[in-house]
């Protein structure tokens, strides 16, 4: 009978382990690049043409948000497109997302000489834009915030909660 008990116990543990793995896989699955309204390639623009990120993401040095290029910016180069009527609504599917309770300001990070790629990954190589390989967990942010001498808060590590949460 004790033998039976042990079998039941074993099965239970096994089931738990499987469930755990499933959850883990769901949380940390590598995000596939989503379908975009226009087959835009960072590989061509940022890679081959070596455009500066700021050429399109114009607000990144001055604003919390990096800013998305308006269609006039696209038309500036794609002149044949410009002759055609420009769609009045172009809805990109975001790949870079932070939870609402985390306040990230691009300008100050750029000012602190943090390369775009250090968070966004090698976008210049992406045919289809996808989320960075490392998920943006709090630990991801802490990697730098623990290390860096911070220009804003002076002494030491920028690990105080109000740095990002309000």
């Amino acid at each position, binding site marked *: 009978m004790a033998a039976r008990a042990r079998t039941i116990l074993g099965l239970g543990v096994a089931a738990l382990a499987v469930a755990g793995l499933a959850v883990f896989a769901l949380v940390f699955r590598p995000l596939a690049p989503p379908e975009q309204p226009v087959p835009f390639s960072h590989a061509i623009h940022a890679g081959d043409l070596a455009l500066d990120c700021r050429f399109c993401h114009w*607000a990144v040095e*001055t*604003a*919390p*948000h*990096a*800013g*998305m*290029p*308006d*269609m*006039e*910016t696209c038309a500036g180069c794609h002149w044949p497109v410009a002759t055609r009527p*420009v*769609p*009045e*609504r*172009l*809805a*990109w*599917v*975001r790949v870079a*997302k932070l*939870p*609402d*309770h985390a*306040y990230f*300001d691009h*300008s*100050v990070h750029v*000012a602190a000489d943090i390369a775009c790629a250090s968070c966004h990954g090698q976008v210049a190589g992406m045919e289809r834009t996808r989320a960075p390989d490392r998920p943006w967990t709090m630990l991801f942010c802490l990697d730098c915030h623990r290390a860096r001498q911070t*220009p*804003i*808060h*002076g*002494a*030491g590590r920028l690990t*105080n*909660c*109000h740095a990002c*949460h*309000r």
Partner: protein
Amino acid sequence: MPATGEAMNGTVSRRAVLKGLAAAGLAGCGDEASRLSIPYADQPEGITPGVPAWYATAMEFQGYAQPVLAESHMGRPTKLEGNPDSPWARGATDAFTQAACAILYDPQRSLAIRPGDWAGFTRVVMGVPAGGLRILTGTVTSPTLARQLAALTEAGARWHVHEPVGRETMMRASRLAFGRVVDTHLLLESCRVVVVVDDDLLGPGPDQVRRVRGWAEARRHGQPRLMVAEPTLSTTGAVAQDRLAVAGRRLPLLVEAIAAELGLGARRPGLTEAEKDWASAAALALGVNPGRGVLTVGAPLPAESLALAHAVNQAVGNTGRTVVHTEPVAVVPRDGEDSFRALVEDMAAGSVEAVLILDGNPVYTAPADLDFRSALVRVPLKIHAGLFDDETAALCDWHVPLAHALEEWTDLRAPDGTATIVQPLIDPVFGARRRHEILAAVMGESGAEARRIVMDTWRPFLGEPFEPLWRRVLHEGVVPGTEAQVARVTASARRLASPIADADGLELVFRPDPTVWDGRYAPIAWLQELPKPLTKLTWDAVAAIAPMLAARLGIADGDVVEIAAAGRTITAPAWSLPGQAGDTVTLFLGYGRQRVALPGAGGYDAYRLRLADSPWVLGGAGLRRTGAHVELATTQPHRHLHGHEELLSPQPEPAEPPSLYPDWDYPRFAWGMVIDLDLCVGCNACVVACQAENNIPVVGKSEVARGREMHWLRVDVYHDDDGATHFAPIPCMHCEKAPCEMGCPVNATVHGPDGLNQMIYNRCIGTRTCSSYCPYKVRRFNFFDYAAIQPDTHRYLRNPDVTVRANGVMEKCTYCVQRIRRAQIEARAEERPVADGSFTTACAQACPSRAIVFGDLNDPRSRVAALRGDPRHFAMLAHLGTRPRTTYLARIRES
């Protein structure tokens, strides 16, 4: 069952449904919003994602400008701040102005013109012969509106004015004293003595910001004496050093006594000892301070008394120094004080073919004895234009949704006359119409554009080159050279007020409500839940009676009483208010609305007892208990200090116990706040500013009654044993040795390197230990999903830089950390230090008396650091060793 948020008529089930809906809605839209990123087709100038744009404009209060800078996030107005360039506002605002954005997005605003469309409306109004047209407005200071009205009058139409809290008495008094209408401005800042007879100088009103600032400046530089005689406790009475509670009918006698004492051959009336003492003290004070004092008499008194006061001020040499008369800022209608009565009589006589009621609700606010309602229905064509489809709109043939000031193109003048061009931050949200376009349509110029109409007004004034000058006045929000011209007038022979007979029975005293005013703000949940300065009541109006009277009649707070006067009766919840004159009952206007009222709001309709001839005082009233009782929601059930005077004053050394622990050092910044209790007049501007800045939800009457209001900043009011009243704004103290932080098991509230007591909503699991441990009880808890029961439209009102708190988390004042961060980031970008005063918290920014000072204690030159050295400086409950960063300057108590 817990009923929550009647603001959104919630019972639990109702709440739950709402919650469900909201959840669904938010999820759907929220997802959409965060899933997609939609750039502009053509990026407009001056819009940077995540960086608010600021525009200079003005809000409107009783026709007067309240100049502001409006913050706009991606085209959404979210917050207003006083315009620092306006000589009248100097950067401050009152509570109503802080609530303006909430009005803009109010879900009850009328959505559509009815019964037809705009074209149909223009066709109808063009058919009206100008001769038969009457236009009814509130007070008008707008030059453009005046221009249009003049044109219409030219064409034969007649313009009338109705303002429930009107200036008729002042105008009448001005005619008596000077033979014509002038405005009277009090330069409180240069006063040594201010004698007030029933005039709530520092209370809510179109000129509150300037007067409170003046008073505060006077207090800073000296100890001006404020002497008040009034029937019911007002803000002014609360901060007075020498206050006499006396019935309204006795007040004219006091004025005469003062005049007599100062040698103006008035009769010496029979006064009681107390009255005599007060009057002679006042007269003496005025006499020994020639040119440095003010005698001001309020609208409730007869015009003769006001005129007498003009004479007194002139006699003691105040006129021209502390009392300045100017040409009227508000345009005076043809019939002057009797403008409204004239209209009603003509309507009743059937001689009016069409009436256009532009932004007003006379059906609700007209004095009962005029019977406006039945007069109105006799008018063949009735047109109403207003923000809400209200009682008046219901009786009119046409209703046109009116644009909110944030949607308007117009111009307004502040009480000192300086004009502001009102520019829209947003197109009319609910298909509303701008007032100048409506009038233009009446004049047959449909399709005229408000912006053009306003520009046409100013072209001659600004001159050439017009465009750059126009841009400049728009950008600065003030038109230079528009302040009211000083009027050289002298008070002529005086006629004394005919004494009011001592009618037996009680005396009714009418007052505008401190948070919903004359009722125009009754639909606004923010202002309904804003605690009234002296009672801390929310969602309700009471009939205030003297504690002794309450004791004599055995009336408890909340007992419903029946009040009868002049053959009409109303029932109202009673409330005993310290400082109320013995045989008077104070009734507050603004409640008992029939339409667009909020479900939670209680109160009664005081207009039903109001008479046209004596709108402020009414004798011979009766009062009796009905036996009924209603629950009143006050945020401060205990308004007595219970002998704890030490809470509001410095403690004998050593105030603070020694600490076992080494001190933390705050290397870069050490944010702190000092609040001067001597300057606070409890006006609530800070409370609403905080609510607007920090996405603070409204929870509804029953939740407030349960002690669950969410305001991060509260203004405590206390009465002490010697009858004095004290105000004390209480934000989070940001203690350096914070007990709350010790209680949290998950590091959800901790200390920052700049000394902020941080609250991390997304880490909070809701043990509420922090609040249990907080000696100041400044923390607020989301007992329900309050964010989800806010009106859907209020989502546009939210400050994107502040987290919307979830169900079950604690929240509290953060010293507006989002502003601190922005200032630090901007300073970093421009590689300069964060200068003192370059930014401040929402509460400090709004405060008209500048009683709240915020800054960096590490900066020895900062104002806050300087104030910490003041001998009046103290920390509340210092003996607990919490080391608060928010500290106080004690009130100065004379004698």
